[in-house]
């Protein structure tokens, strides 16, 4: 407690600060530390410059990725994603610093790791392919399929997608409905688009769900895809649809920058989350903790579409869906999207011992015990806790370093994502910095200080595959 003398000094100082603040206003920081500036160049000039620099932009990002990860195509033997299209990738892909093993790291304190600078770079926040421009970047498979079906262009002229297909979710992914478990995947192996959704789902979903689906597939103007000179697509664009990222209500791995942070240099990358299991999620948005899917659906027009800048949105053409007639229907549709089947789980999300292998059962014990995973990823509530948590990764590295124009700062609290169907949705963590499940096990082993042995880590991966 401060002494009374100290308190008096404090009050004197605060008092004078209050008085001076009331009398004079200070200069704020420049407006574009928060707001998006207006473009100054003709579109054709900006496009030509972007195109000229694109090879260097991609080369720089590839260099960073190669330095951080082993990106090889190394599938697990016989383990496929739920749709049977992509193999699940095997092994730890984050590269270790020279002369250090995973066990060495696990034996060090966070302070030692920070002091010696040996946190693997792949565990640090992952930069956007071009931080200064940011914005939504779609994988090639999505771009090609939307072009084929809709003749709508999702290809940017300033950047390309940066991770290889074999480390991405399968495409197009299957769709499972809570209202029709008996049907299994209802996608027919197609990517749902505005051109085909009615034929595929008529007779299966209700009229309000159908209208919600139509809206989720309708393109609306977005920061990089619009009709103004401030866009990153060659032609004046109709925009993007919600399901351009959340392909078939799962994810295609498209990424953008968090709308919740400024200035631009410190906005971290966001990997698209799956919408599977939305019916059980109580909070939405990795940082905003929006309390309903309706709130989220409505507000994404301000955030995923326009980076949390309603001023820019107004100029480019904001779509503000009507809360009762449109948002509610979009929510109705999202709320029937089920997780993929997990035949080894019982109704409480626990492994059925008669179906699971000894290694998987051992993995579950570690998950709920020594590994501490189950403290947030609670089986009974779809492996979530409907909370946000701060892993405080900055205990392990010096914050404020700049990598590829991205200033790495503490992430702060991020919501607990579900682990149901987790093998279908690489890469992992909110920014996609971890390529495989084995990477996530190493990451949390270090961050939580659980000191797992190799056979325990292997058991955890085997268990995660059953979810």
């Amino acid at each position, binding site marked *: 407690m401060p002494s009374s003398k100290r308190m008096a000094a404090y009050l004197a*100082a605060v008092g004078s600060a209050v008085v001076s603040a009331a009398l004079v206003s200070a200069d704020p920081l420049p407006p574009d530390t928060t707001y998006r500036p207006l473009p100054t160049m003709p579109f054709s000039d900006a496009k030509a410059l972007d195109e000229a620099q694109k090879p260097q932009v991609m080369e720089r990002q590839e260099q960073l990725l190669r330095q951080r990860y082993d990106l090889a195509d190394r599938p697990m033997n016989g383990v496929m994603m739920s749709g049977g299209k992509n193999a699940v990738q095997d092994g730890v892909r984050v590269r270790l610093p020279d002369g250090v093993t995973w066990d060495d790291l696990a034996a060090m304190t966070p302070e030692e790791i920070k002091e010696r600078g040996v946190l693997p770079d792949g565990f640090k926040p992952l930069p956007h392919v071009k931080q200064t421009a940011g914005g939504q970047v779609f994988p090639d498979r999505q771009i090609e399929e939307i072009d084929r079906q809709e003749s709508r262009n999702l290809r940017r002229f300033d950047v390309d997608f940066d991770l290889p297909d074999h480390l991405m979710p399968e495409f197009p992914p299957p769709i499972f409905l809570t209202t029709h478990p008996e049907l299994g995947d209802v996608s027919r192996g197609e990517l749902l688009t505005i051109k085909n959704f009615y034929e595929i789902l008529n007779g299966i979903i209700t009229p309000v769900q159908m209208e919600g689906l139509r809206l989720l597939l309708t393109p609306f103007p977005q920061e990089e895809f619009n009709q103004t000179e401030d866009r990153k697509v060659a032609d004046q664009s109709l925009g993007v649809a919600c399901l351009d990222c959340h392909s078939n209500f799962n994810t295609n791995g498209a990424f953008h920058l968090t709308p919740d942070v400024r200035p631009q240099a410190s906005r971290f990358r966001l990997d698209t989350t799956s919408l599977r299991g939305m019916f059980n999620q109580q909070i939405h948005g990795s940082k905003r903790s929006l309390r309903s899917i309706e709130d989220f659906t409505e507000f994404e027009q301000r955030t995923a579409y326009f980076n949390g800048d309603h001023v820019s949105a107004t100029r480019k053409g904001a779509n503000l869906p009507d809360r009762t007639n449109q948002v509610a229907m979009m929510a109705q549709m999202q709320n029937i999207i089920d997780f993929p089947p997990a035949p080894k789980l019982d109704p409480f999300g626990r492994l059925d011992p008669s179906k699971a292998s000894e290694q998987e059962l051992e993995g579950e014990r570690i998950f709920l015990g020594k590994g501490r995973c189950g403290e947030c990823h609670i089986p009974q509530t779809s492996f979530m806790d409907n909370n946000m948590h701060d892993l405080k990764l900055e205990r392990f590295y010096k914050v404020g370093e700049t990598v590829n124009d991205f200033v790495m700062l503490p992430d702060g609290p991020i919501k607990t994502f579900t682990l149901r169907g987790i093998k279908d949705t690489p890469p992992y963590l909110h920014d996609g910095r971890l390529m495989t499940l084995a990477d996530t096990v190493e990451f949390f082993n270090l961050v939580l200080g659980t000191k797992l042995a190799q056979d325990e880590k292997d058991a955890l991966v085997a268990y995660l595959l059953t979810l």
Partner: protein
Amino acid sequence: MLRWTAAPFVLAIAVLPAAAQIGNPGFMGADTRFDEPGALAPHQTNNSDRLFARLIAAGGMAEVEFGRLSQDRAEADAVKDFGRLMVEDHTTAGDKLKSLAEEARIPLPDKPDPDHARMRKKLEQLEGEAFDIAYIEGQIVDHVKTVQLLAWEIDSGQDAQLQRFAAETLPTVLHHLQLARQVHSELTGSVPRDTLAAAEADDQEQDPAR
């Protein structure tokens, strides 16, 4: 406690790319000069670079002045130590900025801006503990703003050398902010608010089942 080492600078340099890339060309000045398409001519500044240099120079100048003031007027040793560190670090950074600005032909201010002039006037009227608290609280605000300005330049600037300067300086300024908050906590007796989530070793229990 307040000793600062050059380590953050060294680390930042190590991870920086050889050349910063141009930002969003849609926001460039129409008179921007290029060596070849997509590659800027050297010292091609934009408005952000010039404003950044001006604001950082004025702020840095004030940090040095306030730091010197603290040697006469502060009471707590921690505040004097902090003030001395500000004089040292901001003199070094100021010299670096000055040479970069000269190369890029950016005129720098020769006196503090109105906000810092007001703060100086206020600090000159205080001494002892009242000075300590007012100085450190002002430092916290200044360093918060400086962190944002540096990050802004990294993203919005155009002169690769100024951007590199911003990237190299940012970890140090974050460190200063952390120190200022620690000193403030000591002065006021409040619970330490360590915004950089310092090294509290979590006692991790091994019984998570529930």
